[in-house]
C-alpha cells in the first residue's frame, strides 16, 4: 500500500488535521489519502467528524492545524508557512476543482435544472451560454433527466433533485467529488436511482470521497472504507476487511452491530 501510494502520489492528502468548535474537538489529527480514481467512503457514528472533514476538503469549514492538499496544492491557506487564509478569488478557484453534493440537495430554486448546472460553467469556467447548455444537457442525460432540463427544482422529486445536484457538481469536471450523505434526505424508494448514478461515475474513474450510511453501497462501490470515531480515524481498509464481523476494532464492531440492529 505505501509502495503503491509512493508511485502514485495522493490526489487528496489530508495530514494531521485538527479542528475544534470552541472547546469541542471535532477533528483530532486526522490523516487520510485518496489516490486518483479511488472511491473512499467514510463511515462512523454521528458526531464523529465525518461531515466536518468532508467540508474542510473544499474549505466550507476552516481547520485549525494540519494540512489538506489537493494535487499538491494546499487548500484554504497560503503556502507561506504562516497559515494565512487564501484570498476570496483563490478560494473560489480552488473550490471549483472539488465538486460537492449535499444531503439537502441545495439546488438553486430560481434556476431550472439546466440553469443550475450552467451557472458554474458560465461564471467560473467562462463557457458561452450555448456551450454550457450543451454540457448541461449531456450531464442531465447521464443522470437520466434529459427531459427535465427546463424544470425548476420545485417540480422535481427528491431523487431527481439530487441527480441534478450530482450533475451540477460533475459538470465542472472536478478533480475529486465530495458526497455528503447524499441519500439521507431521500425517501427509501428514491435512494437506488441516486446511488446508481454514483456507481456509474465510479466506473468512469471519478475520484470520490463520500460520507454515507448506506453500508451495502459502501461495501460494493468503495475501494477503501475509513471508520471515524470521536473526531479521529479509527480504522482504514478495504470494505471486505473493515465490514467483516471479526475486524479487530472494538468501536467499529459495536458501531456495525448497532447499525445492523437498526437497519435490518
Amino acid at each position, binding site marked *: 500500500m505505501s509502495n503503491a501510494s509512493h508511485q502514485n502520489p495522493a490526489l487528496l492528502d489530508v495530514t494531521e488535521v485538527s479542528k475544534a468548535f470552541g472547546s469541542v474537538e471535532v477533528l483530532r489529527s486526522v490523516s487520510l489519502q485518496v489516490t486518483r480514481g479511488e472511491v473512499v467512503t467514510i463511515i462512523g457514528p454521528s458526531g464523529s467528524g465525518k461531515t466536518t472533514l468532508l467540508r474542510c476538503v*473544499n474549505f*466550507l469549514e476552516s481547520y485549525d492545524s494540519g494540512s489538506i492538499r489537493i494535487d499538491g496544492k494546499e487548500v484554504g491557506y497560503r503556502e507561506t508557512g504562516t497559515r494565512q487564509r487564501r484570498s*476570496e*478569488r483563490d478560494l*473560489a*478557484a*480552488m*473550490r*471549483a*476543482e*472539488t*465538486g*460537492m453534493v*449535499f444531503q*439537502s440537495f*441545495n*439546488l*438553486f*430554486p*430560481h434556476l431550472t435544472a439546466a440553469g443550475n448546472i450552467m*451557472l*458554474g460553467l458560465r*461564471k*467560473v469556467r467562462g463557457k458561452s451560454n450555448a456551450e454550457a447548455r450543451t454540457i448541461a444537457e449531456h450531464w442531465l442525460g447521464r443522470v437520466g433527466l434529459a427531459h427535465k432540463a427546463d424544470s*425548476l427544482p*420545485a417540480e422535481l422529486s427528491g431523487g431527481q433533485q439530487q441527480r441534478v445536484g450530482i450533475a*451540477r*457538481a460533475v459538470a*465542472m469536471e472536478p478533480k475529486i467529488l465530495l458526497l455528503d450523505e447524499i441519500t439521507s434526505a431521500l425517501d427509501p424508494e428514491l435512494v437506488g436511482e441516486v446511488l446508481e448514478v454514483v456507481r456509474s461515475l465510479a466506473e468512469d474513474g471519478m475520484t470520490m470521497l463520500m460520507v454515507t450510511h448506506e453500508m451495502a453501497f459502501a461495501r460494493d462501490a468503495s475501494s477503501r472504507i475509513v471508520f471515524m470515531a470521536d473526531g479521529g480515524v479509527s480504522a482504514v481498509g478495504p470494505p471486505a476487511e473493515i465490514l467483516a464481523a471479526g475486524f479487530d476494532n472494538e468501536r467499529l464492531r459495536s458501531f456495525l452491530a448497532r447499525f445492523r440492529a437498526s437497519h435490518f
Partner: protein
Amino acid sequence: MLSQIIYALPFLAEGFAVTLWVSLLVVVLSLIAGVLMGVGLVYGPFPLRWAVRIFSDTIRGIPILVLIFFVYYGLPAVGLHLESFWAAVFALTLFKTAQVVEYLRGAVGSIPKGQSEAAMAIGLTFRQRLVYVIFPQAFRRFLPPWINGVTDAVKGSALVSLLGITDLMQAINQVIGRTYEAMPLYILGALVYFAVNYALSLASRRLERRFSFIRE
C-alpha cells in the same frame, strides 16, 4: 370649486414635479447605500457589522422631522452647509437607508445557508454568489417591504415643505394662502399622493406574482 382647482393646477404641477424628484433621489440613493450597508451588516467583519448596526438603530430611533431639522439647522455648526433642498434629500435618504438595511438583512437572512454553500462549492466568488444566487432569491422577500418604504418616501417627502421647498404640499399651502379655500385643495393633494402610491402598490403586486415561482 372647479375653477379654484383649475387655477391651482399649474402651481401644483410644479410642486408635484419637485415631490417626484425628491422621492426619486431618496429612493435611488437609499437603495444603493442601504444594499451596500446591508451586505456589510450580514457578511462584513465585526467592526463593520457593528458600525452599520449602530447607524441603523440610531437613525431609526429618531423622528424623521428631527432628522431633517438636525441636518439643515444642526450640521452648519460643524461646517456642513447644505442648501435646503439637499439637506432635505440627505435627511430623508439617511432615514430610508436605515430601513433598506433592515429589509435587506431580513430578505438575505431568509435564504438557507445551503444556498451560499452550494454556490461556494461550484467556485463562485463572493460577489458572484450575491448576484447570481442570493439576490435573485432574496428579491422576492425584499420587494414588498421595500415598495412599502417607497410609498412612505413619497408621503414623507411632504416634510421638505417645512424647509421652505416648494413641493406638492408647499404648493397646495401657497394656493390656499391666496384663495382661502382649503378643503378642495387638500382633497386634490390627497388624491395625487394616493394615485402615486396606489400605482406603486399595484406594480409591486404584479412584480411579486412575477417572482412567485421561486419556492424553497
